[in-house]
Structures are given as structure tokens and as C-alpha cells.
């Protein structure tokens, strides 16, 4: 295994898939001339020429064209620059891309990937800090994934590009420069399967993206206090791996869900709702949710810290489901 960065890992995925399949191409704003803010597109222009392209600031065109391209024999990968801008192309996502296969009775494959860098980073404030997976939870027809490490980033991106369905690929901005082990050779991280990052017996912690590492840190600390946390890294957020979650909850009888997005109406709601629905009598405590307080993300570091979910919030939630004093 090598140790490479998250952005390097996504770059490898792009290279491998673009080499293999000449119909894979990628486009977005300001990706050619600067190679991506974290170098995640570096070298692609030299190798693939105009199969990597800069586009005007036109998100409806970026996303809408991905559908048109996917329907006509290519496999587009569209970069959104910031996940926040998914709102600009929301009709394209919700009413065109997600519904195309179904409303036309399955006439076409829709192999497209929308890469959407998300999350809180560098006091970028309300319009550049969001995790917006909650916006697309109520839309049937989309696959949504969110890697948490270089290895899962590469494996999921490759799976997403091969998938004959539309995939939104949320990649957390803070993860890009982080390094981690990545298998040699080709591999795929399966879509729809969660991974148990750390086995445990006392409480199940369901999480994804940047919160996986925060969860791991908390779990490590709690281990010292004799609390054994099982961490489930969802990886696919829609449709998420209910079976793995339920299996774990049936063992631990307690569950906390942690994400960076605001709590109300977030993915945690669906997870909690589903767990209590399917494992009601296994639960010894309510499923608790950890996420940002229900506000836009403010600018000033003091405020941002207060609104964002912190490790301490995870810890407190775990104490709470264990009925321990913080």
C-alpha cells in the first residue's frame, strides 16, 4: 500500500478510468488552468487534451449537459467547484437527471458523476461551507456517495464513473490534502455498502465524510474510558446501507448519527427514523443526532466553531445514549 493524498487518490481514479474508456471526460470551472484547487485534476490536460475542459460559470449548463452527454454515449464527470452551487442546477438534478430513466420507462442509461466539494473549511461562510446531501435525500433516482479517506475516494470515484446511473460524489474540502494508505493496483469501493471502520460493542456511531475521522478520534478517547464504539462509515448516502446499520444496532442497542450538515432535515433524520422503525425493540436509547446547529455557517471563527458539530458533541451524544454523565 502507498500513502497518497485524497486529491491524488481521486486523480488516480480519473486517470485510470479515462485511460480505460475514451468516452469518460471531465469538465468544470477553472480546472484546466489550475489543475483543481488541490491539484485533483493536475496532469489531466497534458494526457487527455480536451477530454478535460474548463467551462463558463454556467452550472445549469454544466449539469444539464452532463445528462445530455450521458444519454448519448459518453460518461461525463462534472465538477461543481463547490457543492453549494448544486442549488443553481437543482432542476437539472431533481427534475431531469433523477427522473430521466424512470419517466421514460428505462430507455437509457445515465452514467454521469457530479463531483461536489463540500463542507466547512477556512471560514468560507454561509455560501461556501455547506454539506448539502440533505437537499437531495427526498429525490428518488439519485445515487449519492461521500468518501472519507484517500482509499475510499479512489475506489468510490471509480465505481461512480462505471455506474450506469447518476452519482453525486461529495468530497470534503478538508480531506483533499490529507494522506492515507491506498491499495496498489485497481480496486473498487462498492456503491451501496457501508464499512465498519472500527468494531465495537457498546454503541453504534453512524457517520460519513469528514466526520469519520472525528468519530475515530472520539472513539479512541472513549475506549480509554471503557466505552466501545462501533463506527460505521456509510460511504453511500443514498441509498444507504440499512442492513449494516441494523445489524450493528441490534448488537449495541444504541446509536448516534453524526454529520457535518445541519441537524434538522439532514440525512441523520432518515437514518434515525429508519433505525427506530426497523429495530425499535433493540434500542435501549433513542437514536441521537449530531450535526451543525440549525443555522447557516457563519464567518467569524468563534461563531463557526459554535455552529459546527464538534467532537465534543459526538462524545456527549454517546454519553447520552449510554445514560452516563458527561
Amino acid at each position: 500500500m502507498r500513502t497518497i493524498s485524497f486529491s491524488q487518490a481521486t486523480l488516480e481514479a480519473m486517470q485510470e478510468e479515462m485511460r480505460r474508456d475514451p468516452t469518460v471526460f471531465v469538465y468544470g470551472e477553472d480546472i484546466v488552468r489550475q489543475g483543481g484547487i488541490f491539484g485533483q485534476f493536475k496532469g489531466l490536460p497534458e494526457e487527455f487534451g480536451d477530454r478535460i475542459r474548463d467551462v463558463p460559470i454556467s452550472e445549469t449548463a454544466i449539469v444539464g449537459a452532463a445528462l445530455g452527454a450521458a444519454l448519448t454515449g459518453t460518461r461525463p464527470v462534472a465538477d461543481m467547484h463547490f457543492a453549494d452551487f448544486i442549488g443553481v442546477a437543482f432542476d437539472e438534478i431533481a427534475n431531469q437527471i433523477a427522473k430521466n430513466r424512470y419517466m421514460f420507462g428505462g430507455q437509457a442509461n445515465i452514467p454521469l458523476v457530479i463531483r461536489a466539494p463540500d463542507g466547512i473549511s477556512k471560514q468560507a461562510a454561509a455560501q461556501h461551507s455547506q454539506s448539502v446531501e440533505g437537499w437531495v435525500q427526498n429525490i428518488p433516482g439519485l445515487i449519492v456517495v461521500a468518501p472519507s479517506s484517500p482509499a475510499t475516494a479512489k475506489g468510490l470515484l471509480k465505481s461512480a464513473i462505471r455506474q450506469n446511473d447518476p452519482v453525486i460524489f461529495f468530497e470534503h474540502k478538508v480531506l483533499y490534502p490529507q494522506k492515507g494508505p491506498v491499495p496498489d493496483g485497481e480496486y473498487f469501493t462498492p456503491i451501496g455498502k457501508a464499512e465498519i471502520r472500527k468494531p465495537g460493542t457498546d454503541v453504534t456511531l453512524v457517520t460519513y465524510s469528514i466526520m469519520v475521522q472525528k468519530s475515530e478520534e472520539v472513539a479512541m478517547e472513549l475506549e480509554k474510558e471503557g466505552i466501545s464504539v462501533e463506527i460505521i462509515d456509510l460511504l453511500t448516502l443514498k441509498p444507504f446501507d440499512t442492513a449494516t446499520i441494523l445489524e450493528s444496532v441490534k448488537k449495541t442497542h444504541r446509536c448516534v448519527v453524526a454529520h457535518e450538515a445541519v441537524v434538522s432535515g439532514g440525512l441523520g433524520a432518515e437514518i434515525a427514523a429508519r433505525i427506530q422503525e426497523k429495530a425499535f425493540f433493540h434500542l435501549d436509547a433513542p437514536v441521537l443526532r449530531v450535526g451543525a446547529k440549525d443555522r447557516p455557517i457563519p464567518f467569524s471563527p468563534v461563531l463557526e466553531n459554535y455552529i459546527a458539530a464538534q467532537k465534543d458533541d459526538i462524545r456527549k451524544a454517546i454519553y447520552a445514549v449510554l445514560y452516563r454523565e458527561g
Partner: protein
Amino acid sequence: MPYQKKEFPNRFTALQKDAMHNLLRTMIRIRTFESRVEELFLNKKIPGFVHLYIGEEAIATGVMANLRKDDWITSTHRGHGHAIAKGAQTDRMMAELFGRKTGYCKGKGGSMHIADFSVGMLGANGVVGGGFNIAVGAGISSLIKKTDQVAVCFFGDGASNRGTFHEALNLAAVWKLPVLFVNENNQYASTTPTSFATSAERIADRAKGYGIEGYTVDGNNVIEVYNAASALIEAARKGKGPALLECLTYRIKGHYVGDPEKYRTKEEVQKHFVENNPITRYINYLKDKNLITDAEIDAIQAEASSEIAAAERFAEESPFPEPEDALDDLFSFSPQEFPEAVR
């Protein structure tokens, strides 16, 4: 609003008589289909919303005569004419409108989502202006795959005010995509006259903002449409980039079947129907030039009538989908492969 006429090479005159008759055949097939659909809707045989293409047949016909089967089109909520002209079968269309299993979308789409991907008809669209960027994406495919396929995007005057129009034309222009944007200016967007909602004097004027060619033609004259589309599609196919073609026409029927049409007078409609009926005009032209006989016209009409009657029969006799069919077609994989996804 007046407009400057551009003289396109008259390629129509080079057509074989058969091809000329085919234009008429397509227009009459569309008209016959639509007229019957109107009746069937009023007789409650067709549920949902239906927007008719009656009076606008020359546009789809004149444009599509210049496309290959492997070219693509995107359509609008008023998509039956586009589908027929691009080569979709009227029986499967009718079955779709009836909500039957044999319809193009297995009954999941209906009129507003009529589509036949196998002939490059990438779908009607319930979202006005939803097709612009799909056409752009098809154009990008052509570039990436290095083929010479062309995409044509049909859109209404109302749709020309959507932001997607702007983003699509700009991107098509800077990437020189093989896309022709065909505006069907039928003088209304639902209840709203074009001039009330569309600030440009001519929709074709908007081309200048994208540094591309923009022309206005008489959209009720199938020959004019044919010639303009021929030139512009050829240019697109040769890598000259996109263009904008505004076709002036008139929406003879209500916005949808059942529209009370309070926003215009019967006289206005009647006048247009009499003066601008594209089929009558084309028949008159062909007869004037001795390019068709009455018998030939009657044959075309009879053929169309029996085709549409057969289509209706096919639809009527087709089964409805099973309720559980409603679960299919969300994703490329089956429930067995991936149960979580298709709960």
C-alpha cells in the same frame, strides 16, 4: 415585428418528388395524430395534460428532414410532432398517451414525456427550457466521440426567457458545438403573448449575444424551414458551431386540450388557421408547381388516417401496466442486485 429575410440556398428544389411528398406526409401524419388525440382526450381516453402541435407541423417536418437517425433532438411539452418527424412510431406513442404498457415509456411518461431514444428523440420535457442543456450535452458527446452527429433543440418563445437558454447557447458557442437551436415562436407562452414576456424584438436577435448566427424564417412554410435547417445543420455537422433559428408560427389550438382560451379571440385564431395553415400552404405550392396530384394527396391522407386508426387500436388493445411495474426503471440494476436502492 418585422425581420430581415436571409436567403438560404434553395436545396428544396433539389429534392426528389418522393422526398417532397414525404414532407407533406409527415405534416399530415402529425396533424392526423394530433387531431385524433384531441378527440380522445376530450373523450377521456387519454389522461393527464396534452399540448397539441397543430399548426406548427412545418417546423418539425422541415428540420427533421435534414437529420439522420443517429442525430439527436430535444423536445418540449409540445412534443408529439417532434417525435413523429424524428421517426417514432405512432402506435407506441398513442399507447404511451393511453398509459399502456406498450407505450414508449411503459406508461410512466405520458404525453409530456413522450420519447424514443432509439431514433434520437431524447424526450419531451415537462420543464419549459429543460431541453437546452440536454441538447448541448449531446453536442458534447459528438465532440468527445469525434462523430459528426448533430443535436437539435426545439424550444418555445416562452422558453427563450429561461436562464437555461442563455447558458446553453453560450456554452455551445464557446465550444463550437454541433447544436442547432430551433425556436418555435407560436406567439404565445400559455396565456402570455410573446411580445409581453420576451424583450428581444426578434428571438433570433439573441444570437448576437453569443456571437453566433441567428435567423428568422416563416415557420408555416415548410420549404423555408427546410432550406434554413439544411444550411445550418450542415454547418453544425462540419464543425462550424451552433446557430439559432427562429420559426414564426401560430398556436392554432389552446395551450393544452381544455384551455378556455380567454386571452385571445376566436377570430384571431381563425384568421391564422385560414391564412397560415402550413399544410394547406404546402399543398397549394405543390399543386401550383404540378408536383403533386389530388389523388396523391388523397392517398397520403388516407394512409395517415389508417395509420392513426391502427395506432389507436393498438393503444386501446394494449394492456395497462401491472401496478408493481411502477417499481421498475428507477436504476440500471434490479431490486435483486441492490435491494436497498429499490425499497
